[in-house]
């Protein structure tokens, strides 16, 4: 029995050891083969218990909220106040017991954390209902999630942290047009980041930090667009900043989660690469750059700095972060990651060139060349490393680019036809050349 426990621990450690270069991938695989699936099965069962605990308490908490939402008319205000506090006090009591007795069980901590979080929501809901409180859903979500965030830290429970990420995004959406309020998202987000660090410290491939990363990757683009929309509109830099955001997440993912063995462990890399490719394809259209280019060059962009300098700062910070992480990637000679990681630089350079020269075509040409090289580079790297996923990634980029150009109404049919034939012939001859060279080598 003890052995199984140690093997489970070893299995949890393996991805981290591989990513830090302590252990080669082959050795990790050999260890897995040696110890077999037994431990993995046990680990799976343990996670089933955790999931059932979360789902169970979430159902109970949700049920309490729905029961209270019925709005029992017969109940007096003092009775309603008591009922509002009852689930909260029970949940707090349970949390206090878990902390006092130092129970290490993840299932217990996640379950109690979920229940306490929902109890806070139920309590505020019932009071809002009793006193006919107005106000919008955003205020309600913000109060709720701010009160629940400490639960995530103290119990080490993931659900309150996930609710917090969603809650602050919802709140940002509700205050999108309310002066500088929506910028509050960034300090609110900063309050949740140490949780990621705390959970990822021991094993960054553990489901808890990984799930947090998934929710972060899904909510961050929404909040970024909402909170920075004024400056993004003024500068027409939507796609450039989104590529910078994707670049930051992609490079962070590869830097710290590079040893992930399964798809679900790579939210930063996979979602960012998908989003960046989409934005990149959009920027390969001349018509998009025509829309982005200001008729008066930099003047409106500089003008907006005066009235929205904090928003500008946040926007520029993303671009700087993308460049810094790219430099780090270059410094570490991580050639496999560099091609995709370079997209923010290409986007930024194209944006500056187009704004300065007022020639939209420069941006489109640069992006077409870049995406072609990116697709080819990825494809070749995949073939070299015999990694089917990487090969497919390169194929997706190339296919998307080809499709985009095939339907690009900005380029004449003759020009498109000739270009397609020339590139096709180049492809075939290169392929043939490579095959001959490989044959000669062998």
């Amino acid at each position, binding site marked *: 029995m003890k052995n199984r426990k140690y093997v489970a621990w070893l299995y949890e450690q393996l991805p981290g050891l591989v990513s830090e270069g302590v252990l080669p991938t082959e050795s990790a695989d050999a260890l897995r083969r040696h110890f077999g699936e037994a431990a993995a099965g046990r680990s799976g069962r343990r996670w089933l218990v955790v999931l059932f605990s979360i789902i169970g308490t979430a159902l109970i908490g949700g049920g309490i*909220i729905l029961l*209270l*939402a*019925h*709005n*029992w*008319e017969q109940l007096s*205000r003092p009775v309603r*106040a008591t009922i*509002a*506090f009852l689930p*909260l*006090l029970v949940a*707090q009591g349970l*949390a*206090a017991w878990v*902390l*006092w007795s*130092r129970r290490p069980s993840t299932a217990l901590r996640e379950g109690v954390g979920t229940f306490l979080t929902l109890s*806070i*929501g139920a*309590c*505020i*809901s*019932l*009071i*809002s*209902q*009793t*006193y*006919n*409180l*107005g*106000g919008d*859903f955003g205020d*309600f979500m913000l*109060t709720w999630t701010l*009160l629940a965030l*400490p*639960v995530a830290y*103290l119990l080490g429970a993931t659900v309150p942290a996930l609710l917090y990420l969603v809650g602050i995004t919802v709140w940002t959406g509700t205050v999108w*047009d*309310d*002066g500088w309020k929506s910028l509050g998202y960034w300090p609110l987000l900063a309050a949740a980041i140490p949780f990621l660090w705390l959970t990822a410290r021991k094993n960054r491939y553990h489901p808890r930090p990984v799930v947090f990363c998934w929710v972060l990757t899904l909510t961050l683009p929404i909040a970024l667009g909402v909170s920075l929309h004024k400056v993004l509109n003024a500068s027409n830099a939507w796609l450039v900043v989104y590529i910078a955001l994707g670049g930051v997440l992609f490079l962070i993912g590869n830097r710290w989660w590079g040893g992930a063995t399964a798809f679900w462990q790579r939210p930063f890399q996979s979602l960012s690469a998908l989003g960046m490719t989409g934005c990149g394809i959009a920027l390969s259209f001349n018509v998009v750059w025509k829309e982005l280019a200001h008729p008066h060059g930099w003047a409106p962009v500089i003008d907006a700095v005066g009235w929205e300098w904090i928003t500008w700062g946040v926007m520029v910070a993303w671009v700087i972060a993308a460049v810094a992480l790219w430099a780090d990637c270059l410094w570490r000679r991580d050639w496999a990651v560099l091609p995709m990681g370079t997209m923010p630089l290409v986007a930024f350079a194209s944006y500056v060139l187009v704004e300065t020269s007022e020639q939209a075509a420069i941006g489109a040409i640069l992006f077409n060349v870049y995406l072609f090289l990116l697709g080819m580079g990825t494809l070749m790297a995949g073939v070299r490393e015999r990694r089917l996923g990487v090969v497919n990634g390169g194929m997706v980029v190339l296919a998307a680019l080809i499709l985009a150009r095939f339907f690009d109404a900005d380029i004449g049919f003759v020009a498109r036809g000739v270009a397609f034939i020339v590139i096709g012939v180049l492809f075939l001859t290169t392929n043939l050349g490579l095959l001959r060279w490989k044959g000669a080598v062998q």
Partner: protein
Amino acid sequence: MNSRIPFGIFLAVALIQLSIPAQMIWRHERSLTKGRAYRFRTAPVDPYDAFRGRFVALRFEQEKAPWKDRQPARRGQSVYALIEEGSDGFAHFSGATAHKPVAGDYIVAHVSWPEANNTVHLILPFDRFYMEETLAPAAERAYREHNSRSNQNASAVVRVLNGLGVIENVFVANKPIGEFIRDAKR
């Protein structure tokens, strides 16, 4: 000893978690018990809130006020809306200002949009009246019948204290809405 620190922090957090809702109750309870009652004319709809249940959304006939300050009002600005009772017994706003009034009742509201003729449209903090799930659809129907131009017979009583307005009840044909619906069902 150090391992007890998280427990100590949790106790502080738990107190905050309890104090925020308790403070909500305290403020609103004070307005309801000590505040002066004003009657506002209303208009209905029946939306739904997944968390807080069904409510009658209230739109007030009186939602604009003359702007009293020299500096123009901004959209979303927090202002003090001064309340007066008209000769018809219904409340109306005699003015709105960015400065806290020294006398008279007022409500803290937000500017929806400022009009060119020195009038501001207000977003009032009380905009809903929660009803029991089964009563809300009937409430909506009752409201529709009693809130048309030809038969405007619905109102809300709001208790006001220190800038906080809390809806005490909603009336249809001079009866509390719950009672009105129950009578109609009989």
